[in-house]
């Protein structure tokens, strides 16, 4: 069963075309990573998938229906979005922040129901943020804050979760924590997760499917092990890549021209 179907999707800003004739289908319960160089339209794709932008041509279907046919409220019941690091100007507490995702379900007078409270508490537990539920968002570290925004997306109770570079400002431990959390929600709750990321190695370790976008409009969509290869990554990113294996999973390391050992590598590249 395909939860998302993208057909011949194209989008251009006034200055540049970023996506050209992209088609792919996402099975329910897949963890998909969207990778590619800066400016190829990864975030644009995320906005198209969440109806923040309208495609020039082509279509996005969620559960078999065109995305444009959903009302804002209905769509919010299908897709939750975690955007890049953002701190609101007013200091809401963690629990208030997560509760805001329930706004459209509030009872009369604009207050949450018992159900809303249970859902929020569960999201706080799952993301391990319950311990600082009463702290202000502005007083948290970047890693903690990212977990809160994921909690907020989970409390929205949608089958689909979109994330825009969820680990971009995080240290190694927090990066792994976030991906562990996402993987758990995928496996336990059966959510379909789409993450835009720059971290190919995390994508290789955690994601089932990869959408690799190249700047000339080509793209590659498929199983993670088939898409993430030295040849494809080198081609798309335009850097020398060395790759190794830890058990079944590959890892990729870029080596630049001025890197300390660059000379020794010569012009070779590939699997070590």
């Amino acid at each position, binding site marked *: 069963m395909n939860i998302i179907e993208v057909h011949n999707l194209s989008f251009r800003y006034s200055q540049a075309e970023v996506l050209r004739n992209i088609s792919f289908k996402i099975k329910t319960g897949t963890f998909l990573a969207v990778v590619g160089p800066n400016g190829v339209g990864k975030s644009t794709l995320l906005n198209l998938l*969440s109806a*923040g932008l309208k495609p020039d041509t082509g279509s996005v279907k969620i559960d078999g229906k065109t995305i444009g046919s959903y009302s*804002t*409220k209905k*769509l*919010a*019941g299908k*897709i*939750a*979005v975690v*955007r890049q690091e*953002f*701190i*609101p*100007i*007013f*200091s*809401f*507490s963690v*629990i*208030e*922040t997560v*509760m*805001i*995702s329930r*706004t*459209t379900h*509030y009872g009369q*007078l*604009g*207050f*949450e129901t018992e159900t809303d*409270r249970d859902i929020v508490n569960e999201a706080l537990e799952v993301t391990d943020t319950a311990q600082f*539920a*009463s702290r*202000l968002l*502005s007083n948290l570290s970047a890693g903690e804050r990212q977990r809160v925004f994921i909690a907020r997306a989970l409390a*929205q109770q949608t089958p689909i979760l979109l994330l825009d570079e969820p680990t971009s400002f995080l240290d190694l431990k927090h990066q792994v924590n976030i991906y562990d959390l996402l993987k758990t929600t995928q496996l336990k709750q059966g959510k379909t997760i789409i993450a835009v990321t720059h971290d190919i190695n995390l994508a290789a370790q955690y994601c089932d499917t990869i959408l690799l976008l190249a700047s000339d409009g080509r793209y590659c969509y498929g199983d993670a092990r088939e898409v993430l290869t030295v040849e494809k990554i080198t081609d798309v990113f335009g850097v020398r890549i060395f790759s190794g294996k830890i058990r079944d999973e590959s890892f990729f390391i870029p080596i630049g021209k001025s890197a300390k050992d660059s000379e020794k590598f010569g012009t070779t590249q590939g699997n070590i």
Partner: protein
Amino acid sequence: MKQLLTKRKLFFQIALAFAVLMIVMFACSLQGTQHISLKSVFASSGTPNSINPDYEIFVHVRLPRIILACIVGAALAGAGVVFQVLLRNPLADPYILGISSGAGLGSIIAVVSGFSWTLWGRSPIAVFAFIGAIGTIWLVWFIGRLTGKANVTGLLLAGVVVNAFFSAVIMFLISVTQSSKVYSTIFWLMGNISEEDIFVLWTGAGFIIAGTVALFYISPQLNAISFGLDDARSMGINTSRIQLAAFAIAALTTSIAVCLSGLIGFVGLIVPHGVRLVFGPDHRQLLPLSTITGAIFLVVADTLARTIIAPAQLPVGIITAIVGGPFFLLLLIKSSHKTSWFNK
């Protein structure tokens, strides 16, 4: 552990704030140049032959003025809350999008053209100021829309530029007319509360109360909008509808306030901030409490304005800035260790 806002807590807070407002209004109504005693106010309303001066002063002079201060304070503070969240800018106040210069231009045009009629007891200055205010904010909104639907910066810039442009036109008109009447405009623009016709009061109060209730109704959505339009939309909020409604209500209530009392600064900036510092940013609480606090603040400020150099009167705008400024700074310094909205 910080608790979530509950209906009961909110109701209790609103009731308490309202009680304080009533006490303040009552206490302030007894202050003034002319000493009046409550006993004689309630003793009799006077007969056609012998009027009771205490009753006359209380009912026809003090009360209307205090009610007006209450209405204007509530309107400005409520509108301040809305502009701060819609523009996601802590420096926003009800005048930020050019209402002040629009109102000023309207009133100057009224003076220059020399109209002498009245509309529902309002002078041409007030009527033109209202038209100027609502027209300007519509213009700024329209220009802001042209720069992009979610473009807050575009809206702010449009406001700043329209403000500057209209200010220049005002200066131009003042230079070419050199009318002594211009003085009355300037005094009026400084913000002035005076005795009002009862019909004007009730109309104004009706609009402000309706506006506040409507805003309270959408306050959960305003909470979501605090996180940005994209986030609010993906949480299921119809952002353009909420924005438009909140904007229209805030613009209308501000314009009514301007029409009733000229430009009273500071209330719409510091009251929402003060309430937010103490009670937090939840709009379900922030909006009603700011509205009532704004009313309390302006009633007190106006009482000071008419008693401090009695029998002369100061424009209330001077008092709001002189009293409000330092008070707000104290509150800011005291709470800055737990809140931080502009260093992030």
